[in-house]
């Protein structure tokens, strides 16, 4: 029996709608058209419901993980060569920093939560490398994926016989959360820098 009143259910629905709108605006900031942004968002939501399949006795793949990877590939293919190189560089830096912090910082999450660290690194790296929101988004996605891939290779080399799952496309997965977080960080830092640069002179 559902015990919540209609008003609360309606407010929950509104919350979802606001955040879908927010996600769409973030994607818009990467020079995607409205329809492209909405389609990418819907596809990512669909990824949340896809299952995990066993590839071998030691490797499984979450099919939902293919969707963010597809989105990253699409963003890479539909941009210029300069932007593509920049995105690859930012992704590499992000993955390297996440990998090192995973290994060198204490086991328990304290400072720099591992769930969000890729988003922070991708956002900062993209800001300092051309303030590219598209690079930030791609690095947030692929940075996490590359570190997971490195972890899988490490386990294979160590001879772990158990099944390891790669990738997840869930809306609340680190990959997806970090991609949006990276764009927001790039955007916020850019805005603050602009405000400081203008020094309160709105006319420039």
């Amino acid at each position, binding site marked *: 029996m559902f015990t919540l009143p209609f008003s609360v259910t309606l*407010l929950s629905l509104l919350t979802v709608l606001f955040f879908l709108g927010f996600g769409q605006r973030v994607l818009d900031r990467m020079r995607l058209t409205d329809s492209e942004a909405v389609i990418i968002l819907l596809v990512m939501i669909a990824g949340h419901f896809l299952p995990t399949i066993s590839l071998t006795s030691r490797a499984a793949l979450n099919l939902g993980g293919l969707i963010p990877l597809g989105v990253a590939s699409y963003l890479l293919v539909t941009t210029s060569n300069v932007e593509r190189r920049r995105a690859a560089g930012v992704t590499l830096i992000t993955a390297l920093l996440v*990998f090192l912090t995973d290994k060198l910082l204490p086991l328990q999450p304290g400072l720099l939560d*591992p769930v969000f660290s890729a988003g922070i690194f991708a956002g900062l790296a993209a800001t300092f490398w051309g303030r590219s929101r598209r690079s930030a988004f791609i690095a947030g996605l692929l940075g996490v994926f590359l570190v997971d891939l490195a972890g899988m290779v490490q386990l294979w080399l160590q001879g772990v016989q158990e099944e390891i799952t790669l990738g997840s496309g869930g809306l609340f997965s680190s990959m997806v959360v970090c991609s949006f977080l990276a764009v927001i960080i790039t955007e916020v830092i850019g805005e603050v820098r602009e405000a400081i640069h203008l020094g309160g002179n709105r006319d420039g």
Partner: protein
Amino acid sequence: MGKAQRMALAAICLFLALSSAAASDDAWGEFLPTGEYYTLLGPDDQVLLETGRRIYLEDQYLTADNRLYEVVEVDDEAQIARAKLVAEIELKLTPWQELRRELGLTVIEAADPDTTRGTIALYHTHNAESYVPTDGTDSIYGKGGIHQVGAAFAEALRDRGVTVLYSEQLHLPHDRGAYRRSRETVVELMSKEPDAIFDVHRDAAPQSAYAIQLEDQWMTSIQFVVGRQNQNLGVNRKYAESLKKLADDMYPGLVKGIYYGRGNYNQDLSPLSLLLEVGAHTNSRPAAEKGATLFAEVVDHYFYGPTAEAARGSRGRAASRSIVGLIVFVSAGAAAYYVVNAGGFSAALERLKSSLRLRPRR
């Protein structure tokens, strides 16, 4: 070969090299050094806690006798922290249905609560954790002794009629990225709508820190860990305190305390999510299994026993609070949407000013 391809190739080589380095050497600090732990001292230098968990400033600890301390000084070299007494807490038992309603979540209740029990989910973020006296080592790469403790916990719940979703998904390598990988497991478990989720761990502390004698048997006590950096902290705190209150009534000493630490431990995904430390690596695994089995009784009592039963009928108050919370939440989302939509803070401010400006009447 183009520049982009060369960069991609370099990336793959770099990661393969780093993975190989990590595989061949533990110098990356993957494992907690055996025998190292933090000691938390109270105002009179009394030992409040010994734990393998790193202690940060402003972390809090609720002791077995319900005194809440806050960390005011940490010496990482000596691995000693000092805490001040914040308050003596009188724990309150809040039914779980009320906690869910506080967050605006739906509660689906069985038509016949006496015969139908719900679902509890269990998983292990740190799969390798093991118990030295019986497993022979503190860490088994793959499924460590902690999986058998999880299985004992699951079995004890099933024996009481509870449906258990027990995920043995691996989140290796055993590094801090494990919480990022276990997030996927939590999301997958949540899609099956369990009433609560437990992440089962063991601590790294001296044997005496967790060994207790209950019902003429030696077993390990259990410590709860609640992440301070999650938006569900208020509800998580009430939930942890409710379970401790009930455990104190049923099996005094079984729950040794609640640690409120820095981090979120994926508790942002669910308000009824708790990290359990079932003993330490210095305790025997059967002792940890006994502790987990007794704790299963507490969980069953809280979710499907007299505690849940007493909660039926008191709904209006919780629902009104959930509306206020949601309004605040929606307002924050709307403000963020407005700023991004306008193209930045300054543009948003301009747009807001112009829309508020009164137009002269003709």
